[in-house]
């Protein structure tokens, strides 16, 4: 062990910057949130007013809080199905069926939306969903499905789903690449042996690929689910939570409560809820995934 000179304690200096930054800017705010959520205050109030758990009872009674939570859950479920599930299938198809340069090109193409800022894709899709000049309605026109046309971002019923759809467009390639990385570590011999035994591609996928990318699946799920509960950027840019607060997620509702509705204590309470949900989800997933290490 290289702890000869200077002693072990001076090594603490090496972790000090990281630890300090985290304590001050990441951990302290979490605690402070709890405190702030017990007050009623806003930008214009001369002083803070202690209200105990009132903000939380208001939260429980607030229909917009529940619809925001619902939107986040919907986001998570759809994202897991399309990004993790769809990404896995897409990766398998790319790996198995496509060869050479075409594979590299397709992989790049699918991945590009993921490097674009959510603001860019949000604004782009705002135009795509425009009822008059957008591509989505235009496409429906062209294929003769006029009756399916909607003001996608302008109707309470469709707004959040339109946003969720955009998110899948953006991220499916990213998750697929993660899976490709994992799949490339699977030895070819396993597949060859299976084919010789008469397995179809689909069976090989289910029996070999899926189990052996288990760790990556877990990672992808954690990323997707926590991302779904923290979503803010795309919603804020595309609808700012409207129409009529129908497309709010917890993140945007927090922002609106704090900086539009003049209720910062209430917003802090929302933040505490988001915190509890994301930490619980992460712990649960880690726990479930803590199985045997993948063995070839």
């Amino acid at each position: 062990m290289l702890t000869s000179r200077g002693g072990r304690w001076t090594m603490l200096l090496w972790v000090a910057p990281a630890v300090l930054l985290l304590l001050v800017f990441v951990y302290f705010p979490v605690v402070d949130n709890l405190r702030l959520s017990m007050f009623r205050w806003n930008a214009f109030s001369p002083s803070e007013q202690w209200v105990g758990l009132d903000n939380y009872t208001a939260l429980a009674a607030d229909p917009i809080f529940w619809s925001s939570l619902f939107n986040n859950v919907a986001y998570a479920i759809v994202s897991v199905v399309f990004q993790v599930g769809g990404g896995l299938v897409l990766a398998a198809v790319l790996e198995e069926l496509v060869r050479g340069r075409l594979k590299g090109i397709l992989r790049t193409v699918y991945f590009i939306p993921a490097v674009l800022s959510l603001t860019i894709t949000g604004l782009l899709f705002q135009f795509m969903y425009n009822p008059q000049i957008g591509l989505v309605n235009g496409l429906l026109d062209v294929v003769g499905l006029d009756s399916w046309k909607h003001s996608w971002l302008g109707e309470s019923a469709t707004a959040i789903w339109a946003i969720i759809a955009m998110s899948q467009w953006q991220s499916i390639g990213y998750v697929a690449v993660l899976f490709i990385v994992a799949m490339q570590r699977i030895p070819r011999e396993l597949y060859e042996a299976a084919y010789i035994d008469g397995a179809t591609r689909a069976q090989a996928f289910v029996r070999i690929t899926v189990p052996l990318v288990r760790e990556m699946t877990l990672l992808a799920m954690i990323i997707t689910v926590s991302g779904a509960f923290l979503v803010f950027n795309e919603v804020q840019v595309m609808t700012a939570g409207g129409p009529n607060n129908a497309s709010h997620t917890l993140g945007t509702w927090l922002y609106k409560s704090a900086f539009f509705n003049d209720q910062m204590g209430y917003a802090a309470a929302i933040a505490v809820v988001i915190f509890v949900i994301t930490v619980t989800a992460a712990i649960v997933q880690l726990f479930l995934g803590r199985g045997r290490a993948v063995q070839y």
Partner: protein
Amino acid sequence: MASTIARRLNVLKRGGDVASSFWQTVAYLLLAVLAVAIIYPLIWMALNGFKSNAELFGDPWGLPTTWRWENFEKAWSLGVVRYLANSIIVTGASVVSTVLFSSMAAYALTRHRIPLAGPITVLLLGGMMLAPTVALIPLFRLLQTLGIFDTYWALIILYTAFRIPFSVFLIRAYMITLSREIEDAAVVDGANRWQIFWLVVMPLSRPIIVSAGLLHALFSWNEFVFALVFINSGDLKTLPVGLLAMQGRVLSDWPVLFAALTMASIPMILLFLAGQRQFIRGLAEGIGK
């Protein structure tokens, strides 16, 4: 036996029976549709930057009649150049600080038996579960107290703090697997810890460092919430927030906005295309472990 195997392998090589080539066609079709679905909106976005307002409203599908580069010039001067510069500054600085502090911490944790290693590791990695949005309101007041509200520092420090957990996770997982022979040799040669870190460990960790740096750059370049709330001066806005402000300004001149969006997309796309191999290799070596 051998002939059976050979026969079966031949069948497989020929692509199998009709059913499997049907599925293959279906698969190719889906891949193609997906590729179009992903690329076409981006092309549409770029083309729209060349149109005039009337063209955009009149014929959304069509090609521009004349190629109006002036839209791009206007977008550039309306602020895209400033927003790009700010994003570069903030991302560049925070990539350096994040990778540096994370590597130092990972090095200390994996190479030395420091006191409180356990709690410190949990602290650093546990930070991955804490999200920027959650910290918004308390940070508000904290930044005011520290006097860095509405400065580059606010973003640089915050981005570093919030990305250290993930970077430590990546770098640490990699460093754990490095063999110690070279380092032991260096110690024997009389090198101190700092030298060992810079001259031995870091070069050996190059793939994961690049990967961590690229991932951080991606996060920082696209970060929105903090940039929205903690930066007020128009001069300091980063790209995501600046683009949104632009949407509010050029309310009636949409081709200029499309031009801005197109120009804003290019740096990251180029960076990705150039660094693709490193990025994926780094991911493979880091996450795959």
